[in-house]
């Protein structure tokens, strides 16, 4: 048994089904979910962006509002000083009052160009807070204050500026920024720079303000100066030391540097931060601070931003997972209901393939394809079983028939004289006969024997029907003729008597045609009678072929009182008589044409000069050639008698 007939487990189909459906469903689900997730993310981001923008604008305003408030007094002072320089005590009192009435201001100074104030080489009174008191303190760099940014930059730019944040050592290591207003005197279309008035602002309160700003849990806000230096940052180590650019350099992050550049250029924006900032994905919203020129940023960690979405995503994933499990179970169930009958069917088919046709095919009650397939299969099995039973019976019958035919053929052939030449001592004639039995044994017969010295009886007959009955009938007929011919020498009488005997108890209603002739080979006289047989041919010594005229007579074995008549012809020396059965003339070719008397006539004419044996072979050959592949339906019998000469002639 070949392995291909083995039944594979039905899980194959079920698995494939489940796999394909689940894979497709997963893909669709994943794609849809990914799209949803992405869109939600974008929406959330857009929302956060808006939210952060508003938060930042609010924060920037809150932080800068006091700063712009602080700007007013120095502006006022600078303008009045530009018009007229008061005595030193008045100036110092003004500074003192300014500080005393503005708690947001940490320190204030008025610094003058060499020689500008009362001819002093340098003059820069500075007041700042020490605890609750306002005191005048030395700058610590009186001899070169003109190089400090709070002095140099407003002088060179000719307008008020907020300085970059710096550590003030004189004020006690406080990070501060200074608002400096140039004191300009306009005289005769010429503007002279006299010095600056400053207001220092401690950044501690500003940093406290910024520290209060947060978005989500771990997001934080920070400030960077115009140069990118951190002014406010949760990590104090960054303050005034690191800049967003030094961080970018240390981390080799061009991305952060780009963000820093956007920030210090006064852009408002929202950008993805490199992961190293928070150690996780994060976003940065930033907005410029118009008063100081600094920039505020709010960092929003992405995981907190998307925490709700993630939670929802997890829930959807769990639901999806549960759904897939249910789907898997459903598919498994459906697959099982489909494949269980299929696998049973496959097992049965395997049994049937092994030849076991008695295994009933399990026919489900279902009206689905599997049920239909099972029913068809069962019908096929039954049909196969019946067919094989029929085939067995037919084969047996055929075998029986074949053995019967063999018997019949044996009977037929054993009754025919087959010794040629039959009478080697007699040279008055030559005789040859041949019978080719058909597959189904036709019941032809021929015979010849001497009925008295000088008289030869020849006969050719054809029993109707086939097979054993025909063979037996032929045997009976031949025996009868032989027996009767011992008593009678007239062909008609012989036939009449044979007919009468055959008609007795002929229940099978078989009959036989016969040509019977008796040749007196002393004289060449041939007496003959006919019982419904086809006329033999005569071949004159010159080769002329003619048909022997026969007296009418009914075939033997039908009517008890049939009358047969004898006719006589005299054969010339060298003349041949060719008797045959209808197997010759009715032989068919594949085109269903009959060999016919005309073809026979022609054949005889061509073969006229041959010996009886050669002539018989020629006829057989001609018939064979004509019939070709067509199966021979009837026995073919030819008997040729050549009369040589009269005795003693």
């Amino acid at each position, binding site marked *: 048994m070949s392995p291909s007939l083995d039944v594979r487990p039905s899980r194959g189909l079920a698995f494939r089904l489940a796999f394909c459906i689940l894979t497709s469903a997963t893909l669709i689900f994943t794609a849809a979910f990914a799209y949803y997730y992405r869109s939600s993310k974008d929406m959330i981001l857009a929302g956060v962006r808006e939210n952060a923008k508003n938060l930042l604008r609010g924060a920037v305003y809150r932080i800068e509002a006091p700063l712009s408030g602080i700007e007013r007094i120095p502006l006022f002072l600078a303008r009045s000083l530009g018009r007229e320089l008061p005595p030193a005590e008045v100036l110092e009192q003004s500074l003192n009052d300014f500080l005393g009435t503005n708690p947001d201001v940490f320190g204030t100074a008025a610094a003058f160009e060499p020689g500008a104030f009362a001819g002093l080489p340098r003059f820069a009174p500075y007041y700042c807070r020490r605890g609750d008191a306002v005191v005048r303190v030395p700058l*610590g*760099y009186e001899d*070169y204050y*003109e*190089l*400090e*940014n709070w002095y*140099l*930059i407003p002088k*060179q*730019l000719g307008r008020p*500026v907020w*300085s*970059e944040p*710096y*550590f003030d*050592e004189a004020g006690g*290591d406080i990070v501060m920024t200074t608002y400096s207003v140039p004191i300009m005197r306009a005289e005769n279309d010429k503007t002279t720079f006299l010095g600056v008035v400053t207001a220092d602002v401690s950044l501690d309160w500003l940093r406290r303000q910024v520290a209060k700003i947060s978005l989500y849990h771990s997001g934080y806000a920070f400030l960077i100066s*115009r*140069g*990118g*230096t951190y002014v406010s940052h949760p990590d104090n180590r960054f303050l*005034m*030391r*690191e*800049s*967003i*650019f*030094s961080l970018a*350099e*240390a981390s080799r992050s061009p991305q952060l*540097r780009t963000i*820093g*550049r956007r920030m*210090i*250029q006064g852009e408002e924006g929202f950008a993805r931060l490199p992961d190293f900032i928070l150690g996780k994905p994060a976003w940065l919203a930033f907005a410029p601070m118009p008063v100081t020129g600094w920039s505020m940023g709010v960092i929003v960690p992405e995981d907190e931003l998307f925490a709700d979405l993630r939670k929802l995503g997890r829930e959807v994933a769990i639901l999806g997972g549960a759904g897939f499990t249910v789907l898997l179970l459903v598919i498994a169930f459906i697959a099982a209901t489909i494949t269980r009958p299929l696998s049973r069917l496959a097992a049965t088919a395997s049994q049937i393939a092994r030849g076991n046709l008695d295994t009933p095919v399990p026919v489900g009650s279902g009206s689905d394809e599997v049920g239909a397939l099972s029913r068809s299969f069962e019908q096929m099995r039954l049909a196969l079983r019946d067919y094989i039973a029929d085939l067995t019976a037919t084969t047996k019958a055929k075998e029986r028939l074949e053995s019967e035919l063999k018997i019949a053929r044996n009977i037929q052939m054993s009754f025919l004289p087959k010794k040629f030449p039959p009478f080697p001592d007699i040279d008055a004639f030559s005789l040859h006969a041949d019978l080719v039995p058909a597959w189904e044994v036709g019941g032809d017969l021929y015979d010849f024997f001497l009925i008295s010295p000088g008289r030869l009886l020849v006969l050719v007959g054809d029993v109707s029907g086939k097979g054993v009955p025909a063979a037996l009938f032929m045997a009976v007929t031949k025996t009868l003729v032989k027996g009767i011919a011992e008593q009678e020498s007239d062909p008609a009488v012989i036939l009449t008597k044979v007919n009468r005997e055959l008609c007795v108890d002929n229940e099978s209603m078989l009959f036989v045609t016969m040509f019977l002739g008796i040749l007196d080979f002393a004289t060449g006289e041939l007496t003959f009678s006919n019982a419904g047989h086809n006329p033999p041919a005569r071949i004159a010594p010159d080769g002329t072929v003619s048909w022997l005229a026969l007296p009418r007579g009914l075939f033997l074995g039908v009517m008890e009182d049939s009358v047969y008549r004898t006719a006589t012809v005299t054969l010339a020396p060298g003349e041949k008589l060719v008797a045959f059965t209808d197997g010759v003339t009715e032989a068919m070719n594949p085109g269903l044409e009959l060999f016919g008397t005309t073809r026979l006539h022609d054949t005889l004419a061509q073969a006229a000069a041959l010996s009886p044996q050669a002539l018989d072979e020629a006829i057989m050959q001609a018939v064979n050639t004509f019939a070709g592949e067509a199966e021979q339906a009837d026995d073919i019998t030819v008997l040729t008698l050549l009369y040589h000469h009269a005795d003693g002639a």
Partner: protein
Amino acid sequence: MAAAVLAGLFALALAGAASAAGPLKKAVLIPQWEPQAQFAGYYVALAKGFYAREGLDLTILRGGPGQPPSRLLRQGTAQFGTFFLATAIEERAAGLALVNLAQFVPHSTLLLIAKKADGIHVPADLDGRRVSLWGPEFRMAAQAFFRRNGVHVTVVPQGFTVDLFLRGGVAACSAMRYNEYHAIQNAGLDPEELTVFPMADHGLDLPEDGLYTLEETARNDPDLCRAMTRASIAGWRYAFDHPDEALDIVMSHVSAAHLPTNRMHQQWMLAQFKQAMTATGDPLGTLSRDRYEATARALRDAGLINAAPAYEAFHVPLP
């Protein structure tokens, strides 16, 4: 914390040296600027105990614009100081008898930096612009550069930062390659956006940082000076060989001084110093006669000095 580490190192150094060579000689060094990698060699030599090993109990004062070495040396607060070569020659001409113990930076690292966005690509583009410059000894090279290129600029005093330049107050500013050049980049300007004129190429290639003492000290205690010089050179060598450790040491001084700088900046600075100090042709610590005389000539040409001492009198050869 950093102070504690320093103190610890110091104590260790003291102990090691004391056991080897008896009592340590006290000495004070005043660098010409605030703590930064520009003086990494001294800080490293101190931290690694190189001075103590030479029998020196060295104190490094915090420098800055308010603590010029010239004043501290004159007052006797410090025995050693660092100067640019030109500054030292100028001071000597003005009466402070400085001698050069070791020349560490044999080339000029001074730059003029402008923004390409202002349309400045070649020296001629500076004509008619405002340029901020540091004090007189820094101006010589720049003015030679302007003369050589036939440009006339309005000179604006430059403070201690490049803020004025960043705010657009001047078209170009002075910058040390190791400091302000990086500070400008660290303020968000990309190198591609800047036009840089190195004075070494365009103006005068004046040697910069060197170690100085007073002639008197060199005469009275040559051993002290030799010890100081040897340990400082060893410190520089060690700093260049161990940049990360050197940076740690520099940063401990930076943090103690509350300076608004960061490690990346100091790293850049140290790398620039290594490049400037280890160039071929000038062995670490030596001042060639040619460089000395070229600098003296430039100062005379600029009218900053009338006469300069002989090379042999100015540069005390290494032991």
